[in-house]
C-alpha cells in the first residue's frame, strides 16, 4: 500500500510516509558506493586485459614462449595465499557483523599477513626477473647470446649463470627482445647451465627481463604491478580497520566494504594467474 502511495505521490502530508531516506531500501550508501567503485575498477582492468588480449592474439607464440620464464610455482602459491586471505577476510566481516572484536582482530591480522606474503613473493618474482639478463656479445669474431641470472658484478664485466649459445655470423635475424631462456637453451643444443663471465667491452647489447624486454613482459609487469598496487592499497585499508579494532572500535559496515574490495582484488588475480602464467 505504501509503495503505491509513494508511486503516485498524491497523498496529504498527514499520511506521508516516514521521512526515511532511501525509499525503504535498507542498503547503506557506503555499500552502493563500494559496488560502484568496483565497477570502475573492473573497467580499469578491462583496459589492461584488453591490451593483453590484443597483443596475445597478435603474437601467440611469443607470448606462450616467454610465459615459460615465469615461475608458476611461486605464482601458484600466491594464488592459494590470496584465496586463503579471502576466506580470512570473509570471516573478519562475519566477526565484525557479530561484534566479535577478538575474532575480528585475528582474522584481519591473518588477512594482512597473507597480503604481505603475497607482496613478498611478488617482490621475489620481480627481483628474479630484473636480475635475469639476456646478453649478446661479440667475442673474437663470433657472436654469443647468453641468458641467465646475475651472480656477480665487477668493474669490467659480470657473471651470469645460465645458457650460452653461438649465433650464426651471417646477419640472420634474431632480436634480443624476443630471445627467451628457453630459446637460448634450445640453441645451445642441450648444453647445461653454467657460470659465464661476460666482459663489458664485448657486449653488443644487454637487456634484463623487465617491461622493456618485450611486449609480453610489458603486459605482465603492468598488469601484475597494478594488481600489486591494489593489494598494497588493501593492506593500508585493512591496517586502518585493524587499528580501529585494536582501539576498541568494530566498524562492521566498513569491514564489509573493504571485504568486497578484497574479494575483487582476489578475483582479478584469479583471472591474471591463468592468463599470464598457465596458458
Amino acid at each position: 500500500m505504501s509503495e503505491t502511495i509513494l508511486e503516485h505521490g498524491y497523498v496529504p502530508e498527514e499520511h506521508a510516509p516516514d521521512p526515511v531516506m532511501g525509499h525503504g531500501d535498507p542498503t547503506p550508501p557506503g555499500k552502493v558506493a563500494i559496488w560502484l567503485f568496483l565497477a570502475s575498477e573492473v573497467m580499469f582492468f578491462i583496459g589492461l586485459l584488453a591490451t593483453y588480449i590484443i597483443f596475445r592474439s597478435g603474437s601467440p607464440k611469443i607470448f606462450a614462449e616467454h610465459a615459460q620464464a615465469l615461475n608458476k610455482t611461486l605464482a601458484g602459491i600466491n594464488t592459494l595465499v590470496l584465496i586463503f586471505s579471502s576466506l580470512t577476510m570473509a570471516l573478519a566481516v562475519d566477526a565484525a557483523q557479530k561484534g566479535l572484536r577478538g575474532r575480528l582482530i585475528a582474522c584481519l591480522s591473518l588477512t594482512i599477513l597473507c597480503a604481505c606474503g603475497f607482496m613478498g613473493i611478488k617482490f621475489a618474482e620481480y627481483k628474479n626477473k630484473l636480475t635475469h639478463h639476456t646478453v649478446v656479445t661479440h667475442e673474437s669474431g663470433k657472436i654469443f647470446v647468453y641468458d641467465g641470472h646475475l651472480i656477480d658484478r665487477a668493474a669490467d664485466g659480470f657473471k651470469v649463470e645460465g645458457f650460452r649459445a653461438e649465433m650464426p655470423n651471417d646477419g640472420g635475424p634474431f632480436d634480443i627482445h624476443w630471445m627467451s631462456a628457453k630459446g637460448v637453451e634450445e640453441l645451445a643444443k642441450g648444453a647445461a647451465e653454467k657460470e659465464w663471465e661476460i666482459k663489458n667491452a664485448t657486449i653488443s647489447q644487454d637487456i634484463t627481463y623487465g617491461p622493456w624486454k618485450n611486449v609480453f613482459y610489458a603486459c605482465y609487469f603492468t598488469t601484475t604491478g597494478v594488481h600489486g598496487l591494489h593489494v598494497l592499497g588493501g593492506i593500508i585499508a585493512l591496517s586502518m580497520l585493524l587499528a580501529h579494532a585494536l582501539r576498541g572500535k568494530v566498524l562492521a559496515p566498513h569491514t564489509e566494504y573493504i571485504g568486497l574490495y578484497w574479494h575483487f582484488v582476489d578475483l582479478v588475480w584469479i583471472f591474471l594467474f591463468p592468463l599470464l602464467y598457465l596458458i
Partner: protein
Amino acid sequence: MTAIPHPLPGVHGHDEAHGAHAHGHEELGFLKKYIFSADHKIIGIQFLFMGLFFMIVGGLLAMLIRWQLAWPDATLTPGHPVPILGKLMGWSNGYMPPDFYTMVFSMHATIMIFFVIIPLLVGTFGNYLIPLKIGAGDMAFPFLNGLAFWSALPPGSIMLTGFMLAGGAAAAGWTSYPPLSALSENAGVGAFAANFLRIEGSTWPTAAVVMNFIAMFLFCAYMCAYYVHLGPKVVNVVASIILSVLGAVVLERGVQHVAWDGQSCWFLSLFWLGFSSLMGAVNYLTTIIKLRCPGMTMFRLPLSVWSLFITSVLVLLATPVLASVLMMNLLEHQHIGASIAGSNARFASFFTPYNWFDQGVGFTGAGQNSGGGYVLLHQHLFWFYSHPAVYIMILPAMGMVSDIMAVFARKPIFGYRPMVYAMAGIAFLGFIVWAHHMFQSGMNPTLGTTFAVSTIFIAVPSAIKTFNWLGTLWGGNIRFTTAMWNAIAFVAMFVIGGLSGIFMASTAIDVHIHDTYFIVAHIHYVLFGGSMFGIWGAIYFWYPKMFGRMMNETLGKIHFWLSFIFFNGTFFAMHILGISGFPRRIASYLGYETYAHYQPMNEFISICAFALGLSQIFFVINFIGSWFFGPKAPSNPWEATTLEWNDTTSPPPHGNFAKVPVVHHGPYEYSNPLVEEDWLPQTRYVEGQENFRPAH
C-alpha cells in the same frame, strides 16, 4: 539547525563527532566553512571558479590559434605578426613558429575539455544541484566530495607546468596519438640544481615548483583538516601544516620523476584528474540512489538530475579505461637507464611498433624501443573513453536546458519519460561508437561499416530530445530571460552540430572530411554552441540561488547576443572550409594551392573569434559586479517548481532544508489548471489532486 536523519550510524566517511547529523555541535571555522568545505554548494562554486579560470586560459589559447590562421606567415602581405607575444618570445619577424602553434592547439583543446567543460558541467552543477533538487542535506559523502575538488588542483598545476618546461607543453594534439606523443623530442634539457623540492636532474623551473607545491599542499591540507585530531585546534593546525608540507614534498618529488617533459606532464595530469572525476561519479550516483527525499521517485527527478545521473554512469565506466591508456603512455614515455635495464631503454613499448625508429634527441641511445607495440591500440582505448566523454560534456547541459526551458516556457517538459530514455539511449549507444573517430586510421574496414551503423543511430535519441524541446515551446507562455535565451541557443546550435555529425557518421563521406575543419565546426557547434551556451544559461539561471544576488538582465542579454552572433560568425564558415578538405592542425596553409585562397575566410573567422572573446567582458562584469552590487535575490525569483527554489533560501544554508521536503508531483507542473498561479511546486500538495487526470 538541520536534523536530516541518516539511515545507519557510522556510515559517513568521516568521524562520528563531525557527522552531518551533528551540525549544531561546533561552529566550523572560516577554513572549514569556505575553503576546505565539505558542503556541496561551496565545492560546486569552487569548481565554478576553477572552470572559469581555465576558460580564460583556454580562450586565450584559442585567440592565438585564430591569429595564426588569419595571418599565417610573412609571405602574406599585409601580414600581422603576433602582438606582444611575438616580441616576448623573440620569434623571427614576430610570426608563430609551427611547433609553438602545435602546442597551442593541443593545449587549447585539452584545457577546454578536461579543465573547463567537464568541471563546469559535472563539477559545478553536479555538485550544486543534485542534493538541492532531490531534497538532501548534502551529498552522500561530503568529505569525498571536497576531496574531488582538491585533488583536481594538482592535475591543473601539472598541466600548466608543461608550458614552463623547456620544449613546451604537450604538442601531439589533445588526442596524443603515439608514436608522435612517444617521441623524445622535448627532452628535458636545462636540468636544474637539486634541492628538497627538486630531484636530481629535474627539468622543472622555479615557477613550476612553486605552483605545484601550492596545489599539492592544499590537496594534503584538505585531508589534514578532516583527519588530524590530536588535541586543541592550534596543535591540529600546526600538525596539519607540517604533514601537508611533507606530503607536498613527497608528491612533488615523485611527480618530477615521471613528468619530465610537456607530454609526460600531460599524461600524468589527466591520469590524476581521472581520480577526481571518479570520486565525483561515485558520490553523485550514491546520492541520487540513496538520498532522495520522500516522494521523490526516480521519475519525479528534474531532468538535470537525470542527466547528471546518466553522465555519472558514463564517467564511472569510461574514465578508468582512459586511466589505463594514460598509464601505459606515461610508462612508455619513461626512459630507464642501463643500470636497471641492461641498456638504455624505454620502460615499455605498448604503442611503438617493431620497425619504428625514434632518433631521440638528447637521449641518444634511448630511441630504441623493445618493439611489438600496436599503434592503433592507443586509439581504441583512448576513444573508448573519449567518445563517452563527449556525451559527458553534453548530457548535463541537455538536462539543465530542459529545466530552464520548462521554467520559462511555463509548461511541463514535453515527453518527460522519452527525454529520460533518450538520454539513457545516448549514453548506451555512446559506448559502442568509439571507432568512428578511427574510420580512416587503417583499422579493419569492416569496422568502418559496423561503427557507422551505431553512430548514425545515435542521432535518433538526439532528434527525440530536440523535438521534445520544440514541443515544450509549443503552446508556451515564453518569458525571454537571459537564461532562456541561452537555453534556446543551445537547442538551435545543437541541431546544427548534430546534423553535421550525420555527415561524418557516414564512413564514405568521412573519407573526405576526416581531420578537416568540418570536424572542427562540428566539435565547436556541439561543445560551444551546445555545452557552453548551456553553461552560461545555467549560470544565469542558478546564480541567484548560488550567490543570493540577481544578475543584470541587460548585460546578460548583450553578452548573449554578441556571443551568439560572433559564435556563428566564427564557426559556421568552418563547415565550408572543411568541405574543401581544409586540414586541421596546420600552422600555415598558404603553401597549398587548394587552400591558400581561403585566407580571407580565415581572417573573417578570426575577427569574429576576437570579437567573441571580447564579448565575454560583459559576462565578467556582470558576474563580478552582481556579486557585490546585484539586488538581493528572493528564494524563487523565477517562479520555478523544483525544491531548491521553493523549500530553501538564496543561498541555502548549510544542510539546505529546514525540514525534510516531501514531494507530491513531478518537477515541471507549470500552468497546471489545479492552481491559480502558473506554477505548482513539487512539495505543495493540492487538495483533490489525486482525482485530477490531465488530458495528456
